């Protein structure tokens, strides 16, 4: 009953501020990262209750073993064609990221974000979904568009904010949108897509539809309140949604410890709500595929939401505005104990006897060429800042369905200014 602490001999409290293991210049040693053996993880039936499989949130689902073989119950047993498509899609994506990143460096646009090293978390995941399933990506899931066949030239048009940009130059590069491909408009605000995906899934369920939703965010973004709202709603209404957390270890300059990684896994968040939760090796495309497939099956059979943590590594800078050498050891990427998703799938296919080093080399060249063509094509429609590609009127459209008087007046003003500022 309200004892007086001043009488007691207590040692002072202290504030814990997380600190990553390695800073620039440090030698990297990942030997304390526990790497589960591939094939070792049990695969419960999709009808298993979340309470009966909490351990999966603390394990790491892996399929490709050290000999590049697919092993264990999570092996999705995909056919060669599917695997080759997966490989080619990831290779194309990487080539695209590389070149577009450089386009920004060359001043052709304002911004770019790569998904290097994390390609499996979008490509393999999207392949395990149905085309009609709705994806709510963050800004690093361009892989979904590659899977669903969005033309690269359209992507580049968006990145260049040029006159063929379907988004009329309104959005920052890489903030794509496609209703046709069930790819939700990317937001610059972190994690807002999370409750939206759950709402979409609730709508689908309430309509007796068959389509499910999938959503992605980074591990850093899990700290936002929207994440919690989404998991709460998904738990309450048993929404048919897959909630992906791409744990790439970094959120700009902050390591995952600032999102809580020192204490538990991110998959464990799902456990907190009684939601099924998987933790997968995000650099193992087969594991990602298998986990997504399992979660999709659950969702589609009215068994509710699943949280999937993809344990991966952001191999490059956060964005073109970022310089990671200022805050992390350059060795991290090389030492990453779970390798690279493209290399791993390539080796698996070679081991499987359906692919070769030469074919991979040819593929890489082909991918680079394809991007070059797309960039060249897109550049014909203009690059950012060279000319004003959109009629000024477009600036005022789509604020509302119909333009009200005040926007009409402002549009007229803008037009008048155009004649003065940029006389034709």
């Amino acid at each position, binding site marked *: 009953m309200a004892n007086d602490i001043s009488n007691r001999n207590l040692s002072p409290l202290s504030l814990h501020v997380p600190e990553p293991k390695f800073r620039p210049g440090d030698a990297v040693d990942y030997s304390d990262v526990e790497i589960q053996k591939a094939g070792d993880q049990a695969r419960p039936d999709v009808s298993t209750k979340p309470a009966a499989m909490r351990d999966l949130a603390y394990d790491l689902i892996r399929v490709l073993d050290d000999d590049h073989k697919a092993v264990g119950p999570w092996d999705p047993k995909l056919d060669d064609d599917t695997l080759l498509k997966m490989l080619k899609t990831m290779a194309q994506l990487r080539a695209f990221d590389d070149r577009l990143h450089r386009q920004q460096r060359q001043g052709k646009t304002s911004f770019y974000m790569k998904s290097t090293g994390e390609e499996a978390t979008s490509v393999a995941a999207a392949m395990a979904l149905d085309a009609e399933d709705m994806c709510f990506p963050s800004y690093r899931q361009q892989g979904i568009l590659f899977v669903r066949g969005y033309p690269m030239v359209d992507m580049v048009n968006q990145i260049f904010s040029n006159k063929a940009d379907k988004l009329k130059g309104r959005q920052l590069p890489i903030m794509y949108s496609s209703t046709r491909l069930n790819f939700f408009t990317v937001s610059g605000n972190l994690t807002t897509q999370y409750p939206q995906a759950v*709402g979409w899934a609730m709508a689908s369920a*309430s309509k007796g539809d068959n389509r499910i939703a999938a959503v992605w965010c980074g591990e850093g973004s899990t700290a936002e309140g*929207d994440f919690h709202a989404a998991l709460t709603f998904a738990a309450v209404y048993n929404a048919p949604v897959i909630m992906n957390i791409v744990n790439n270890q970094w959120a700009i300059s902050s390591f995952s410890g600032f999102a809580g990684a020192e204490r538990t896994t991110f998959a464990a968040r799902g456990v907190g709500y009684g939601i099924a939760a998987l933790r997968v090796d995000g650099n193992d495309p087969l594991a990602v595929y298998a986990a997504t497939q399992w979660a999709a099956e659950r969702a589609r059979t009215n068994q509710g939401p699943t949280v999937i943590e993809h344990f991966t590594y952001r191999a490059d800078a956060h964005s073109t505005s970022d310089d990671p050498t200022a805050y992390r050891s350059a060795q991290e990427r090389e030492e990453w104990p779970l390798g690279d998703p493209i290399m791993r799938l390539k080796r698996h296919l070679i081991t499987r006897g359906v692919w070769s080093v030469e074919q991979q080399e040819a593929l890489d060249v082909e991918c680079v060429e394809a991007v070059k063509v797309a960039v060249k094509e897109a550049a014909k429609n203009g690059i950012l800042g060279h000319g004003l590609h959109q009629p000024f009127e477009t600036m005022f459209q789509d604020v509302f369905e119909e333009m009200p008087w005040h926007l009409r007046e402002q549009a007229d003003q803008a037009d008048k200014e155009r004649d003065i500022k940029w006389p034709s």
Partner: protein
Amino acid sequence: MAVMNMIEAINSGLDNMMERDDNVVIMGEDVGYFGGVFRATAGLQEKYGKTRCFDSPISECGIIGAAVGMGAYGLRPVPEIQFADYIYPGMDQLISEAARLRYRSAGEFIAPLTVRSPFGGGIFGGQTHSQSPEAMFTHVSGLKTVIPSTPYDAKGLLIAAIEDNDPVLFFEPKRIYNGPFTGYYDKPVEPWSKFDAAQVPEDYYRIELGKANIVREGDEVTVLAYGTMVHVARAVVEEHGINAEVIDLRTLVPLDIETIEASVKKTGRCLIVHEATRTSGFGAELSALVQERCFYHLEAPIERVTGFDTPYPHSLEWAYFPGPVRIGEALEKIVGELKS
């Protein structure tokens, strides 16, 4: 025709829309079985089923965020925020998402939500059941803001809001749910049933958004108000025997500038009344607009009568409320300066 108070009219509007369009769904804290803390959704769950009208977790962020997703799917959600004072946890979803979805996707995705929320003071609700946050939303491009002042308008505007393909904030002046209020807290409330505006068709009808209503014609001064303050202002005008034109804005964005401009050009004087805090309230925008468009017609300064720039105090709420004395004084000042 039936006689309805404002809650009943809102309930009837929701009922009509749920009947006509099975994409209309209602979600919010206590709106399901219980029918809402103000009873606006009473009976709807029973009539349309649990998946059309249901309770939500206590998360305004989740309510609006999920509604955005439902809207993207093709539903037409009508989320309720229990009190406007509690809308702030959902601000980001409204400002960054609902308001910009159409724009950023170049029309590919839309957010046809109608966010209903009781607002305003006068019920001894203290700081957190009395706020009028409408001005903030009028600053956000892509949001519409609608505020009814009678049962008839509430139903017609609500239906138009639900049918609108843009996100609408629909703020309900809770002080006048049961009857209009003339600003005298110590007089008994006269029920809506005594007033014409309580004659409400049971069937569907709509009142176009963006059209103001001239509730009283006059030529001495234009009074701009919305919600509860329409009634207070009108009563004061009559008390003071001033031949004022009282305009109920009904929609703040998009604003019916034509009606406002025509009136002020006619009267040469303008009083703006709202309950929200003064600084950067919607009255500021109205004042700026009127001044910009009617400068050469103005014969006296435009005045604003508003709530004070403090939280809504519990015990002194009648000192806070911009009631008859504050309005009357401003009116006399505007008219007086002219007459002299």
